[in-house]
């Protein structure tokens, strides 16, 4: 940079032809280097899932024979068959599915209603409340699970309602993680809808509920899909609440079930553990494969909208 500005026109003229060539060559070189490093990153990022898949195809005999761990000599589906006919694993799957679907519906209803009123129908303290929602989103589950555990024990002592060691208690707990985030991104999406639309609806005599149902939800549908995917991913993946609040084998969700029941056996059945983990990772992966753009929209909206 300094050379071209300080040295006169003559030098710049001399270097002109080589520079034309070097720009296109430089671009191609950048491209090759980009591919090279991206391949390295992809290898780093995909090694664990691929290794999960490789191990899931091995029999216990092949694993304990300590042959090449990166290759399957006698592929078998026995791990998949064993797991999918095993009652406990299916119960984990059912618990996870029911919990996630309930959490998704509960938190979407709560957050869409709240986001609509916070974005459009200002009332006393609504701005503070929106900030509060954002702060609530920043409080991690690891900070609140101990007091919640104690509170649940206290409720049991006072009323006799047993809240600990039931899978459905996760439906009460998990909205703490999903509701603030979903409300926050829905506020962003609703705020971006032009005011002319709801004015037109008001003139036509629509009430607030009609306005929400007939204008806001259809227009902000991409945001709602993104928030729903987020809710599902969070509740499906949550490990801490399940580990702290449920213990019996028939009350566990998938992540906790795999870790506690399959690992604590006398023999580490690694083929089954990897199969279980891979099948457990499948629902989010399938959703991601089909709805990647919504997934990414939800991810980036969380921190950039404001």
């Amino acid at each position, binding site marked *: 940079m300094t050379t071209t500005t300080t040295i006169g026109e003559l030098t710049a003229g001399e270097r002109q032809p080589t520079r034309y060539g070097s720009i296109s060559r430089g671009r191609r070189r950048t491209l090759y280097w980009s*591919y090279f490093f991206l391949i390295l990153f992809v290898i780093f990022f995909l090694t664990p*899932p691929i290794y*999960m898949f490789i191990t899931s195809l091995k029999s216990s005999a092949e*694993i304990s024979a300590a042959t090449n*761990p990166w290759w399957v000599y006698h592929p078998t589906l026995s791990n998949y068959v064993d797991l999918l006919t095993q009652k406990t694993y299916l119960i984990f799957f059912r618990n996870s599915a029911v919990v996630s679907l309930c959490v998704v519906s509960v938190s979407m209803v709560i957050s869409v209603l709240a986001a609509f*009123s*916070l974005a459009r129908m200002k009332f006393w303290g609504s701005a503070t*409340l929106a900030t509060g929602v954002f*702060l609530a989103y920043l409080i991690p589950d690891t900070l609140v699970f101990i007091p919640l555990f104690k509170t649940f024990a206290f409720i049991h002592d006072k009323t006799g309602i047993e809240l600990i060691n039931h899978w459905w208690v996760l439906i009460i707990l998990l909205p703490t993680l999903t509701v603030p985030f979903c409300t926050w991104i829905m506020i962003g999406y609703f705020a971006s809808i032009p005011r002319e639309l709801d004015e037109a609806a008001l003139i036509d005599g629509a009430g607030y509920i009609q306005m929400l149902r007939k204008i806001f939800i259809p227009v902000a549908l991409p945001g709602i899909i993104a928030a729903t995917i987020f809710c599902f991913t969070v509740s499906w993946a949550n490990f801490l609440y399940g580990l702290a609040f449920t213990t019996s084998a028939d009350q566990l969700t998938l992540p906790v079930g795999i870790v506690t029941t399959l690992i604590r056996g006398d023999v580490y059945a690694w083929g089954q553990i990897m199969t279980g983990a891979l099948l457990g990772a499948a629902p989010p992966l399938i959703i991601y494969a089909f709805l990647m753009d919504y997934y990414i929209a939800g991810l980036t909206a969380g921190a*950039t909208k404001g």
Partner: protein
Amino acid sequence: MADVVASGVPIPAAQRRNTMQKFVRRKSTVAFFMTLPLIATVACLVVYPAFYSISLAMMNKSMTHFVGFGNFAFLFKRNTFWMVVEQTVLFAVTAVVFKAAIGFVAAHFVHNLPAKGQRKWRGMLLIPWVIPPAMSTLAWFWLFDPSYSAFNWVLTHLGMPQVAWLGNPYWARFAVILVNVWVGSPFFLIMYLAALKSVPDQLHEAAAIDGANWWQKIWYVNLPMMRNIIQITALFSLIVTFANFDIVKILTNGGPVDQTHVFATWAFNLAISGNDIPLGAAVSLFMAPILAIAAFLILRNVRRRGNEA
């Protein structure tokens, strides 16, 4: 809701009923009722426990009487506590720095590709973020396994000595950070890629005309333009990493000899496994100051961004 109330009431209604009806129909009342479920959820399940943990932390083990700062004084005298503090800070800071660096570099590489191929690469690079961390940590645990470690197999074939990945305290610390970086860097990648795409091309053209090389373009054009998102993402990730639980719990459960414990896993082991709820609450409270600082900075950044837009 408002319509039903309106049509159900006869016109010559009493004055009191009329004001009541007006109150119910008022926009702010409807709005308040719509946010009520949110307020209830956040108040009961986030705000109340957060404050309750402060009072819990000041009880004795059987939670029968108040001991003031007794639990904290006890913690300050224990070596394990200071080790956990050190490890949590080391873990969070190192992991966030590496995640940010990998995300930044990878985002630039993806951005360099022709637009048609970007989707495919981005799709592959985001997979670690999509797999539930508990599941992928199991895969890492199996990769690090003492007797069948796939990494050691590679090392042996390359003629290098084997490594006790999770048995040696230093390697175990390395392992938990590595897994955290693996899980978290796609998030940085995607945020930085979004930020890179928002940098106008004209700026790069202008820089190129002025003779800037690729490094100068990154340093003087991209970095200032992305600064806000870089800060917000790093702070977000700092909160999540500081409060991390799954990875350490599954990979090492704090071992060997408590060397890899972070606040969350130690608090869990004290409170749930060790049945000393107040001490666990006291440990988890140490996450709060860092969270508060990060939250304050994020909020300031988000506000500033909102004003610019």
